[in-house]
């Protein structure tokens, strides 16, 4: 009977219920839209950022990440690789070594970062191969000159005025204190001026190990997880397993490795949630107004219901059911509108008038994300607020005395 009463009371003021329902629907659809786009943008940004070079998890020796030194290496790579390969939640990994160096070609010199990478594993763990602008990514073919291959960033190419096929000299210090210097042939130019690789020289891992006198050792393992959202827990698991090996290695999720990016992203995300909260707040004001009006109009009726034997909590229940019913119907209607919108956002997205260059990767569109969370969270928030706004009018209705209520019009 309470449900019947609630439904009929909703239909009693059709226009008002329709307007309130539409405001709930609008709020829900806007929330889903905003939530989807926010989540989608951040997922894309995180994917870009982690796939560009950071990975989801990194393993270093001791405090290498905070205070990098050439001699702080992972000295047992086979053991670590075996451990990584045994973890099903890791999609792929890549070893790297790093060193600063002086590069020169002709009469020009430039300070560069040398990164040694495993060509095959690195192409799976990062976008480096996609970012080759000219030339060919590391392959098995020897160079015509017989020299070892290097790939250089655009900045080095410009400052040293060299291109694909030209020679480059690198001078650095080996881990054993020796002077490392060698002549290499440029096989590719990677990235753009704004990208991470601008001042980077890539060497095949084995070449870099020999060049820097750290054979069979690496400075870093970059891991890609099957589920990026579980990076922190996976990093903790790996750390525990590595600790059992008594190896002084540190496993860090990308949130730690790139903490400033993570913090700024979180701050931006919270800003968007604030906008979301404002949308929902406005919807709730509308719902509160409707419930309050409906209660005020029916004061006499509530008095009669209490007089003939309804308990005050029956009145509260009736108002609560009315609000929940209107909210449910509005959200269901909103869902019908939200599904094609989500399909559009995830499949097509918004085409940007100018592509955004983020570290050499061009974003041509803004895409949303679709998940149960994107739909359920706004629905639950609206339900929660609808419950909340029912309390005041509901209490008012159930605490009135029948004598006073029945004398009102």
């Amino acid at each position: 009977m309470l449900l019947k009463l609630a439904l009929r009371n909703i239909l009693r003021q059709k226009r008002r219920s329709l307007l309130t329902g539409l405001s709930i629907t609008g709020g829900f659809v806007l929330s889903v839209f905003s939530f989807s786009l926010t989540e989608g943008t951040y997922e894309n940004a995180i994917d870009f950022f982690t796939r560009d070079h950071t990975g989801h998890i990194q393993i270093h020796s001791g405090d290498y990440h905070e205070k990098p030194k050439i001699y702080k290496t992972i000295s047992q790579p086979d053991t670590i690789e075996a451990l990584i390969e045994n973890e099903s939640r890791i999609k792929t990994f890549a070893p790297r070594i790093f060193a600063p160096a002086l590069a020169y070609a002709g009469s020009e010199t430039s300070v560069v970062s040398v990164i040694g990478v495993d060509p095959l594993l690195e192409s799976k763990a990062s976008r480096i191969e996609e970012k080759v602008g000219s030339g060919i990514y590391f392959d098995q073919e020897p160079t015509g000159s017989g020299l070892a291959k290097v790939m250089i960033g655009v900045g080095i190419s410009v400052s040293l005025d060299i291109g694909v096929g030209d020679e480059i000299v690198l001078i650095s210090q080996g881990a054993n204190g020796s002077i490392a210097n060698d002549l290499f042939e440029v096989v590719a130019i990677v990235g753009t001026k704004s990208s991470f690789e601008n001042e980077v020289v890539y060497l095949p891992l084995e070449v870099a190990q020999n060049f820097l006198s750290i054979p069979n050792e690496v400075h870093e393992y970059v891991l890609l997880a099957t589920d990026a959202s579980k990076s922190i827990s996976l990093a903790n698991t790996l750390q525990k397993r590595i600790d059992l090996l008594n190896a002084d290695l540190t496993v860090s999720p990308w949130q730690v490795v790139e903490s400033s990016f993570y913090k700024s992203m979180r701050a931006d995300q919270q800003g968007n949630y604030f906008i979301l909260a404002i949308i929902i707040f406005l919807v709730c004001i509308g719902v509160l107004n409707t419930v309050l009006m409906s209660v005020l109009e029916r004061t006499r009726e509530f008095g009669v219901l209490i007089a003939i034997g309804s308990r005050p909590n029956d009145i509260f229940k009736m108002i609560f059911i009315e609000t929940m019913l209107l909210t449910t119907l509005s959200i269901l209607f909103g869902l019908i509108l939200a599904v094609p919108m989500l399909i559009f956002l995830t499949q097509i997205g918004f085409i940007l008038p100018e592509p955004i260059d983020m570290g050499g990767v061009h974003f041509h569109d803004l895409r949303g994300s679709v998940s149960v969370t994107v739909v359920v969270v706004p629905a639950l928030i609206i339900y929660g607020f609808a419950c909340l706004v029912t309390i005041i009018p509901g209490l008012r209705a159930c605490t009135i005395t029948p004598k006073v209520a029945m004398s009102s019009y």
Partner: protein
Amino acid sequence: MNYVIETQHVHRFFGEGEVRVSALNDVSIRIERGEFSAIIGPSGSGKTTFLQLVGGLDNPTSGRIWLSGANIAEMTGRELSDFRRDHIGFIFQSYNLIPVLSAEENIEYVMLLQGVSVNKRHKRVREVLSLVGLEGLGDRRPAQLSGGQQQRVAVARAMASSPDIILADEPTANLDSATGAALLDVMRELNEDQGMTFVFSTHDQKIMDRANRLIHLHDGKVEQDETK
């Protein structure tokens, strides 16, 4: 004696200090089961206040009220709700039906609160609709019924759960003379055939003519209590 209502030295004041108004002043009345009584008197004499007090819709400033042997002044809000549901039927001057429910549903409502089974409810609704002469109109909403028909629904609602007493506050005030008379005949029949106790507050001569007891109130005091 088997009193349905018993009041002892009931006072009801409204306001404070100089603006304090005495609506009821030392009212002691006993109403027996099966009575068809009318509380009569001019406007402001305390008729409605008396009905509100004995109906548990208001509390006396002082004095005691027993309804079917229970002291209603000592009841909590919830106990009073349940007591009204199970022991009292109300008929109001302006019908006070729930506009979104049909006549049948309005009548059924109190029984639903009592937890009466669906079959028993429906059977009882048919019975009382027949008693008040509204067969075939059960599915109509109040707005689709005339004033007289609405008040008949209100009578049916009040009696459906077989309460100990039906309190009727000027039930014919909004009805034309013929409709009012017809409705009173229905209530009188219910009183005579089923022994249902009715207490009216009224200044309608038709009710006074049919009542077997007239309690005259004046300025909140019982001025005269005559049994026919």
